């Protein structure tokens, strides 16, 4: 079914466009947002206004412009996603590389640690850590990052296990290359394609987790806007002010979907062996 693949590729293009637009919105939030996202206006007329030309996505219960909050929320949500994934990447790749390359007791020790971390359902682990450390944006980033590296570590370890036996690694060693040079210059670049895929999918996942946490009130704290907490604040008005929940919900949906589409297409491109799976 060739058509299905082409179809998916087209969607991946759309996904990439969405990611790019969201990224630009986040970067230029202060130019795009028409109002201060934290400016409260408690006059009865200003609260809970339906979407109009003046307030594109309406206003919330405190009279704040929802569009401006969404734009600034994009900045927060995306940066949580990126920072958390970056943190996971650094830890996951390092642990996986060390375990796979050196093997032996180092490998055993690191992999047991990975398994222990993996034993806990991620969301509960995150909730527990945040309950301990207190919710703020830095901690949210750190906690999402610190709980997300285990899959990556295993992925990278597996790549290293097979790549370290390659002839060119042996050849590099015969020419006097040390462990560090072999790991970073000869093996790592060859091990990166699954890492890219996992990173892209990871950003989507991290945004979703941040939204869930903010929705539960354990993530980014109001008045700082994030898609998750805009959603929460709209919860009580769902019958009268639908726009309060619809737009942040859509933003999360579309963004996460875009990352997943791009990630999966990237996997198809980087790993031709998996092509068969999509043709079913």
């Amino acid at each position: 079914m060739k058509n299905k693949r082409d179809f998916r590729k087209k969607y991946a293009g759309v996904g990439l466009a969405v990611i790019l637009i969201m990224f630009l919105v986040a970067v230029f939030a202060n130019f795009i947002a028409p109002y201060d996202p934290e400016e409260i206006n408690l006059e009865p007329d200003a609260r809970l206004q339906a979407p109009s030309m003046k307030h594109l996505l309406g206003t919330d219960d405190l009279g704040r412009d929802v569009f401006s909050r969404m734009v600034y929320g994009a900045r927060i949500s995306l940066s949580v996603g990126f920072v958390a994934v970056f943190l996971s990447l650094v830890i996951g790749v390092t642990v996986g590389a060390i375990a796979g390359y050196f093997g032996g007791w180092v490998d055993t020790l690191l992999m047991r640690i990975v398994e222990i971390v993996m034993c806990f359902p991620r969301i509960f682990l995150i909730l527990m850590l945040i309950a301990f450390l207190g919710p703020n944006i830095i901690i949210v980033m750190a906690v999402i990052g610190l709980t997300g590296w285990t899959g990556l570590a295993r992925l990278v370890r597996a790549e290293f296990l097979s790549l370290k036996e390659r002839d060119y690694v042996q050849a590099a060693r015969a020419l006097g290359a040390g462990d560090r040079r072999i790991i970073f210059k000869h093996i790592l670049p060859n091990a990166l394609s699954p890492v890219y895929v996992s990173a892209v999918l990871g950003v989507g996942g991290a945004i979703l987790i941040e939204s869930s946490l903010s929705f539960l009130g354990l993530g980014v704290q109001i008045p700082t806007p994030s898609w998750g907490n805009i959603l929460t604040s709209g919860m009580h008005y769902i019958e009268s002010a639908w726009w309060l929940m619809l737009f942040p919900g859509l933003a999360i949906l579309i963004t996460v979907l875009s990352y997943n589409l791009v990630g999966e297409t990237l996997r198809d491109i980087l790993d031709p062996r998996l092509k068969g799976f999509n043709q079913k």
Partner: protein
Amino acid sequence: MLEIINLTVKFNTQSGELKACDKINLSIEKGKNLGLVGESGCGKSMTCLSILKLLPPEAQITWGQVLYNGKNLLTMDNKGLRRIRGNKISMIFQEPMSSLNPVLTIGEQMREAIIAHKGLSKSEADKEVISLLEKVKIDKPEARIYEYPHNLSGGMRQRVMIAMAISLKPDLLIADEPTTALDVTTQAQVLELLDELQREYKMSVLIVSHDFGVIARLADTIAVMYAGEIVEYASSETLFKHPAHPYTKALLSSLKQMQSKKDSLTVLKGNVCDLSNLPTGCRFEERCSFADESCKSGVNKLIEMDKGHYVRCFKCKI
């Protein structure tokens, strides 16, 4: 310059311990070439890898010394070894197809060793890379340095490997079956190239092969290995004219017949004995046409038959 004394390498396998190299003694003088012949699994590659301590983790050097200018490489720390590897002793491998890193350009990988050992700048190193590629007769080297290994043919990759290996003017080049994966015409060219470079750089080459034709091209002295042991050791002239060990004779006779266009080939019957369960006495006894009961026991020592001609055979008495 390089002396291997009583090198013994053991492998821990699931079916038990086996000896890949059993008390190997070899010496290589400066500017001279040593050939190492033997069939698959007789310990040739293990001997080579032990010199640079590149053995796989399940192999262990249980005994012996590898002396390079008097220093034992086997007891040297990693830092010291890295200074020797590539710089003083370098190595080329059997599979040129997989011995180059697919994600680095030719220039990048060749530059690496030069920069690391000599401390040159990138552009200086590039100049050196280009002149090395010219030396190994790769055309348009200025363009080749930006290409990836998959752009090159097998012969060209092996040339690149050779260029990399000689880039630091080593004293010794270990060539582990350098032409096995190449077709016959390319083989001849690569051997010729090795021969030229050896003369120009005044280095020694340890050439390993299962092919006497390849060895004959380069080696000054030849060691024949069988089942982890050296069974015959002589200058190449003596070995080709007066082979003494039945195994060497059998190998050479299969070679000669190809040239005399006879209908049938002499076949050496049987297989190499099980390395984890070695027979007492002579290890070649089962396949040897000269063997009798007396070959089945006793200590089979390497004896000096003539000056510089050593044989490990009960039947070759002086």
